[in-house]
């Protein structure tokens, strides 16, 4: 904390400049290779990449399911699949996208890769626990796959009782998978919190912490506090289904609305597990590509924490029409509106960062701008849904579907792609084709709006969600929406192609292709096995573009390593630095 700047804590460090080596011969990807080494690795970067591969597969599967849904909805009634299959498909689309893609996408995949690099640490605090999280995630995924192939699930991703207690299919296996998955999420959260607290490089005080880490910190807090509630909820659901213990089923003396309270007590904060890390990426990308100090550092950092906190208190807005009391509705509506304030503050801060910057519209920045636009729409329509009287009309219609896709896909997924393109050179040491990246980005943008803007209109007109059949007046909207989904699909195929090409034949990436001041760019691309060949020492914030690059590359030589062999002519700098807590 800034208050720790007492003279006692000031110590002198002898540092020197370490210019990152270009085209390193030895890096984390070519040391310790082989399947077995990958599977047993405790390196956060490799674990991050394994997560990245997993979430990419799940995004592809979830996306194909979305295409099935959209194709089926080209005509009212049956187009090519039955109602029961359709119900399973939308359930799986939701469950896979949320539990297996969105929740781990930024924290577990990108976060794992980038967090220790941004801290100047060699790894996370508990590397073995990190690997365990990945395997727990895999086991959860296997359970879910078993559920899909042994009867499937048709409850919707929300598993509302009493339906989920009565329907056929393998609900038990699915909820068990999600139960297991939760532990992966909790362990990653614990790991990140400890790492951020204890493993910051010398000089990296809280007020110099990259905003991405503030966002991951807030996310980790929610993961640790909210996920256990989901675990206990699905456990209770399984007990009811298997043992007939009455908790939610009114026939057994339970209460189905209680289930909704439990479920949303996790699942609303979960929305913030998904979106808050996206805020972190956007802060990094906008500052880097505007080459300008971030505007309102503390406002952005604290608003992430504020959103995480208020996010715990708004779950009831999912139940405005579920039969809860008017008083509860009033309180939840009020708190829901309050979340809008810190969110708005962030948008304005990012805009102010762009003001008088030096803006380079590379792919990550394009994604960040698309994020700003789509997420703002998601936010405003959230305000619409938070308005009690209007929500009565819009609840459980396509308006809600469009709203959360604008937030989750327009917000989070765009932020994920911004981050993926931004850190891609650091991950693989390769550049991707900028032209095709922009083409795919624009296709996805057009396709996205074509898919979901019509859904706002048909939702307002009364089209309910989760409908296999619909009345004819909605058909033009559904058709437009389906065309949009196909357009997006083409965009994603292009993305998969140029990224694969980049992996195989991409140009060697420089250590710092974007001219960023952030710490992760002051080490070679790809990074060495232990992230830095020295111990980095931080004297400036990560967004201080007015200071020379040399001040961002300081460090202390590692004792086991002779830096003079590799870094000729480094100057000795004598600076004061406060010790980190």
């Amino acid at each position, binding site marked *: 904390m800034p208050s720790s700047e007492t003279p006692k804590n000031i110590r002198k460090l002898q540092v020197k400049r370490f210019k990152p080596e270009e085209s390193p011969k030895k890096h984390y990807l070519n040391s310790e290779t082989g399947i077995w080494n990958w599977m047993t690795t405790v390196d956060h970067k490799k674990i991050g990449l394994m997560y990245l591969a997993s979430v990419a597969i799940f995004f592809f599967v979830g996306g194909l399911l979305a295409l099935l849904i959209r194709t089926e909805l080209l005509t009212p009634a049956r187009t090519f699949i039955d109602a029961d299959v359709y119900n399973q498909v939308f359930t799986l689309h939701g469950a896979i996208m949320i539990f297996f893609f969105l929740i781990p996408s930024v924290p577990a995949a990108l976060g794992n890769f980038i967090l220790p690099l941004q801290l100047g640490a060699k790894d996370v605090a508990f590397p073995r626990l990190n690997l365990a999280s990945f395997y727990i995630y895999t086991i959860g995924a296997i359970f879910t796959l078993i559920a899909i192939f042994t009867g499937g699930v048709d409850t919707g991703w929300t598993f509302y009782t009493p339906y989920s207690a009565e329907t056929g299919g393998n609900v038990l296996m699915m909820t068990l998978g999600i139960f297991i998955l939760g532990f992966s999420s909790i362990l990653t959260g614990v790991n990140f919190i400890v790492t951020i607290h204890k493993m910051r490089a010398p000089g990296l005080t809280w007020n110099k912490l990259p905003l991405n880490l503030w966002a991951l910190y807030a996310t980790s807090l929610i993961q640790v506090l909210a996920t256990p509630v989901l675990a206990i909820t699905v456990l209770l659901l399984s007990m009811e289904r298997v043992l007939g213990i009455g908790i939610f089923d*009114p026939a057994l003396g339970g209460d189905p609305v209680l289930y909704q309270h439990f479920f949303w007590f996790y699942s609303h904060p979960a929305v913030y597990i998904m979106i808050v890390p996206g805020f972190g990426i956007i802060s990094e990308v906008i500052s880097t590509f505007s080459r300008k100090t971030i505007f309102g550092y503390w406002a952005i950092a604290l608003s992430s924490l504020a959103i995480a906190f208020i996010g715990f208190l708004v779950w009831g807005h999912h139940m405005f029409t579920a039969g809860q009391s008017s008083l509860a509705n009033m309180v939840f509506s009020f708190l829901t509106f309050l979340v809008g304030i810190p969110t708005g503050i962030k948008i304005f801060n990012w805009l102010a960062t762009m003001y008088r910057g*030096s803006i380079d519209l590379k792919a990550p920045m394009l994604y960040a701008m698309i994020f700003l636009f789509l997420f703002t729409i998601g936010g405003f329509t959230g305000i619409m849904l938070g308005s009690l009287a209007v929500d009565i009309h819009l609840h459980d219609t396509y308006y809600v579907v469009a709203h959360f896709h604008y937030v989750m896909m327009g917000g989070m997924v765009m932020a994920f792609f911004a981050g993926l393109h931004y850190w891609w050179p650091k991950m693989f040491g390769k550049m991707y084709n900028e032209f095709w990246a922009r083409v795919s980005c624009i296709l996805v943008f057009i396709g996205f709006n074509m898919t979901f803007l019509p859904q706002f*209109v048909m939702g307002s007109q*009364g089209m309910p969600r989760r409908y296999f059949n619909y009345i004819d007046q909605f058909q033009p909207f559904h058709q437009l929406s389906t065309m949009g989904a196909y357009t997006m699909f083409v965009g994603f195929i292009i993305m998969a192609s140029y990224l694969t090409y980049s992996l195989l034949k991409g140009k060697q990436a420089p250590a710092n292709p974007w001219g960023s001041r952030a710490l992760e760019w002051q080490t070679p691309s790809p990074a060495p096995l232990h992230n830095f060949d020295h111990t980095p020492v931080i004297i400036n914030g990560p967004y201080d573009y007015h200071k020379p690059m040399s001040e961002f590359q300081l460090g202390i030589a590692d004792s086991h390593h002779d830096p003079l062999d590799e870094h000729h002519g480094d100057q000795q700098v004598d600076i004061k630095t406060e010790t980190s807590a």
Partner: protein
Amino acid sequence: MNRFSEYMLPPAKSTNAGEIDALFHFVNVTSVILLAGITIAIIYFSWKYRRRSENDVTPVITHNSKLEITWSVIPLILVLILFGWSFTSYTNVTTAPNDAYEIRVVAKSWLWEFHYDNGAVSVNELNVPVDRPVKLVMSSDDVIHSFYVPDYRVKADVLPNRYTSVWFEAMEIDDSVIFCTEYCGTQHSNMDAVVQVLSQPDFEEWLETGDQIDEDMPPAERGEALVSRQGCQACHSTDGSSLVGPSFQGLWNSERTTESGETITADENYIRESIIEPDANVVEGYDNVMPAYQGTISDRQIDDIIEYIKTLE
């Protein structure tokens, strides 16, 4: 702008719709103005401040208290206005007048039953008088459903263990669609019904006669009318095609294999049992999803339905 908002909403056919629509327009217009501002800023900044050279120097602007307070307080004021307005409207549109005409609604997978004060019952067809507040007191016989009439801007979940209610006052003599908006399984999207608004005399006449099925009709025809009124055809076809449940065609006197592997002949007793206690013997290949009709339907009506099924060979 207002025209666009109007295009987005279905026709307003209840007295409360106007209040909700006004709020919808307000949020829409405010959002579009703010969104336009933000979008213009994004595009303008990225053009005006585009990178000209690698050596661009940018100013150090870390914060600006006045600006930050402005953009925190103005949205706060806006959402407070919105909160007050929306809660007031909510209270208005959810509090039924004391003199409202009450109708009991029972939701089952997958049909709506409407019980009127004189004992009349209609299925999937709600008849209401025009220009008179109507309050629906609703409950479900199985899973959660949700009652939604877009034209009236009313919606409430229908729960198995408690009563919920909505009220509305229809302004014109017209039909509107009722949707189920809480996912309830295979036929969720076919669980729709219609509200028929009648003039007060027509409504009273309907209450007295509309529900009655002509006693002089032959039993098989009465049965056909009952099957149609009870919404049986949503799941049971009469042309041999298999829907959620087995078809009525060719059912009479056929051999049925149940889930437990038993073979039962579909005689009077089996059909009767399948109506009042459907989960006793479920036919192989079908899910046990039919609601029980015990108490909803009289023995004479069951006789009529059996007679009707006999005709479908």
